[in-house]
């Protein structure tokens, strides 16, 4: 299916979807949202591109194999837990920079890890299905 309408719409919509995904990831800190739902939203953006431009375009745009993305994400999530351990606290304890409590902390790192694992898992299935 190579429709001009779909292609043009995808160019607009997929960018918007990505922005929404990042917003959801950031917002998940104190409000509904988070890495999992953000990855689902981001995956719909990639799915649109895969439908209109073909899976090869997605692979080229990603520059990262979905399996590597899963691995890196899992590593990030584990790493955010290990940071808590390095601070002599139980695994996964939140650590904040600067310690007085600004928004940047290990929970965001953990959520980013979740985002990458979920996105990597969905994309590896999606691209494999599109390619066969």
């Amino acid at each position, binding site marked *: 299916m190579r429709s001009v309408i779909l292609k043009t719409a995808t160019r607009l919509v997929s960018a918007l979807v990505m922005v929404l995904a990042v917003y959801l990831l950031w917002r998940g800190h104190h409000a509904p949202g988070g890495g999992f739902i953000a990855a689902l939203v981001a995956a719909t953006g990639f799915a649109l591109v895969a439908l209109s431009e073909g899976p090869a375009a997605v692979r080229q745009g990603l520059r990262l*194999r979905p*399996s*590597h993305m*899963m*691995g*890196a994400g*899992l*590593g990030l999530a*584990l790493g955010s*837990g*290990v940071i*808590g*351990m390095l601070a002599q*606290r*139980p*695994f*996964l*304890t*939140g650590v904040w920079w600067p310690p007085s409590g600004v928004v940047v902390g290990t929970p965001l790192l953990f959520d980013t890890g979740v985002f990458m694992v979920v996105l990597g898992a969905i994309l590896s299935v999606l691209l494999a299905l599109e390619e066969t």
Partner: protein
Amino acid sequence: MTNLLIYPILLPFATAVGSLLLWRRPALQQTLSLIGSAGHLAACLFLLAAVVQDGIQVLAVGNWPAPYGISLVADHLSVLMLMVTGILGTATALYARGEMAISLRSQGFHALFQVLIGGISGAFLTGDLFNLYVWFEVILMASFGLIIWGQGRAQFVGAVRYVVINLLATLLFLLGLALLYGLTGTLNMAHLHQQIMTQESHGLVTAVAFMFMAAFGIKAGMFPLFFWLPASYHTPPIAISALFAGMLTKVGVYALIRTFSLVFLHDTATTHAVLLVAAGLTMVTGVLGAAAQNEFRRILSFHIISQVGYMLLGLALWTPLALAGAVFYLVHHMIVKANLFLVSGLSRDCSGTLELPAMGGLYGAKPFLAVLFFIPAFSLAGFPPLSGFWAKLLVIQSSLEAEHYTVAAVAVLVGLMTVYSMVKIWIEAFWKPSPDFGPDQRAIVPSAWKIAPVCALALITLCIGIGAEPVYQLADTAARELMAPQVYVRAVLGGAGP
């Protein structure tokens, strides 16, 4: 607070991360996986030492105190299970090192394998029922990936049955969780122990208890929900099916023991009586199913079911001796059963098939292999002084003490039938002359990567059999902890609790 509890979960997942990042370097992945498995075993042994020395260990993950956050709890039962997980993980990783070169090419194997080990470790360590559900999902996903490994058609049919019935079990589990949370407002197991005691409507709690029993019963291969197991366990590669046979149903048994010794104690007259009947029927159907089979791994699969019956019997009798028997049985069975599956792989290497009528002559061609089969097989059947003898003795003795004579008689008879099955494999595969067709068995030498873990597991079986006392002491301590849940509750909630 001790971070020691996180390592058995953290190390396998870290190894999985490494294997995913090394996607294009299978040889490095292989080495990393072996190192990761050895590290996991070491972490489990450290934790075992800590628990034996200082009693129950608790970690409030994320520094959120129980019952608000998720607690990891290691008591004697947990660390014993973890220790065997470490041993089997390392043994099957070694075996896979030998098998991979022949039949596996693709790269995701090690990541899935390590995620499975991490998921199993998490299930043994968690002190929170919802977290247990999450670990079950992790295990299910990883094991589904592994069970379709190799992409054979028969494998896929078995895998679909496996995943459908297991999804049903997790659905039941989730429904039970929702009802339980609605009733008590908590899913921390120690807190649940307190809350259920104060519940007024016991009938509702009993109904929820049966939902959990059905969910875990499916996982454990309990009668009448076992049929998925022999349909799927004989198809994947040997290392995978050995790990599954050793570990997966036993996670279900562990979950049954944990919930029915800590959470659902409000009406043991009903719940444990149903368990008793189910245990007896599980033993009988498993062993009868095995008698009808003629394929090496299928026979072994049916015997998993009958052996699960013995463990459930130990739980159902609900005495310290019976529980100690169940725990001893778990430890013995996991090692022996995984080893038998590995031996079936060595036999297949030599005779080219696992269909018993087409096998034969292994005793003449490979006497050492015959010894390696003999030890776990007759330990499974309960020959003294091998480990299975003590395990069966404990369970049967406790059922006599509890004056459940019918069940004791069933247990003895099922033991005899197990001997029949093992003798059948012995005669067909090892004793009878080799059929004319097929390869020259003497010329085939399985790789050392495969023989080493089989020898190690056989040695462990011998050690548990001859030096049964220390293992029994550990099992006995575990049983006493299970019979006195106040210690567990105090360790998790601290003092009187909220």
